[in-house]
């Protein structure tokens, strides 16, 4: 373990501090805006001190936004088969 991580590991054992694994568990609710004030405060404190979690959270949130952008519009399929249209309309008539 690097000395940087050793120091962090020690620091995150202090009262009210979260370690990275505990911070990870709060990230979903943090993104959804569902974290109660006390937990939000503890996560924000962790993020102020942890470059790795800050970097991770930024990449996590960018990934969500990229996923949403990539699927923001539904491009209609341009290969709707005529026989499928015929099959659907025929099935309706048989009802």
């Amino acid at each position: 373990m690097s000395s940087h991580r050793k120091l962090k590991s020690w620091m995150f054992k202090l009262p009210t501090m979260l370690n990275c694994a505990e911070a990870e568990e709060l990230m979903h609710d943090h993104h959804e805006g569902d974290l109660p004030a006390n937990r939000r405060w503890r996560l924000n404190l962790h993020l102020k001190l942890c470059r790795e979690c800050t970097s991770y959270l930024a990449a996590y949130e960018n990934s969500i936004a990229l996923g949403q952008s990539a699927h923001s519009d539904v491009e209609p399929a341009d290969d709707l088969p005529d026989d499928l249209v015929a099959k659907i309309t025929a099935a309706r008539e048989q009802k």
Partner: protein
Amino acid sequence: MEDYQDAPESTLVAALQQEDAAAFEYFVRTFGGRALAVARRYLRNSDDAEDCIQDAFLQAFRNIEKFEQRSSLATWLHRIVVNSALMKLRSQTRLAEQSIDDLLPQFDTGECRVEPSWRFDESVETLAAKGEARRHVRDAIDSLPENYRIVLLLRDIEEYRTDETAELMDMTPGSVKITLHRARSALKKKLEPLFERDGE
């Protein structure tokens, strides 16, 4: 076939509610391409996607009487297609749990995160505007294990609420949250080639 293109949507809805055959054919031809694209998001097999939209259109026709036009016809049909696709998926497999442990965050023995430092020189909007990056993102989502992919699509793309997703997936809301978080984490891992490491 009467052309409904320039008429208000309520004209088409009224014709569908009167069981007008020509209106139904127009409905299928006009909305079918979009419906097929949505079905293909969920069902990787082309025949399954076609079966799915056939079921969806017939279901739409059966329920058109109850359509109150609180949303557009496209939005209403979209939800029917998604439901139909999920039913098809459920009938095929039980969406068996697949492991994505390799794609989840890593911690050392002191519970410290092992993570590179990322730099985002390009905004999400700039990245997403690039065709190649969009394809990469879509492929990354498509490559997620089935249950993670579907939960991510429902929550982040279709914007269903957690409780709605839970009902559609026959899961508990807590389980939806955990699956979604893992799916997002795995997606982030798969998208790392799009990000730049700080200091490089």
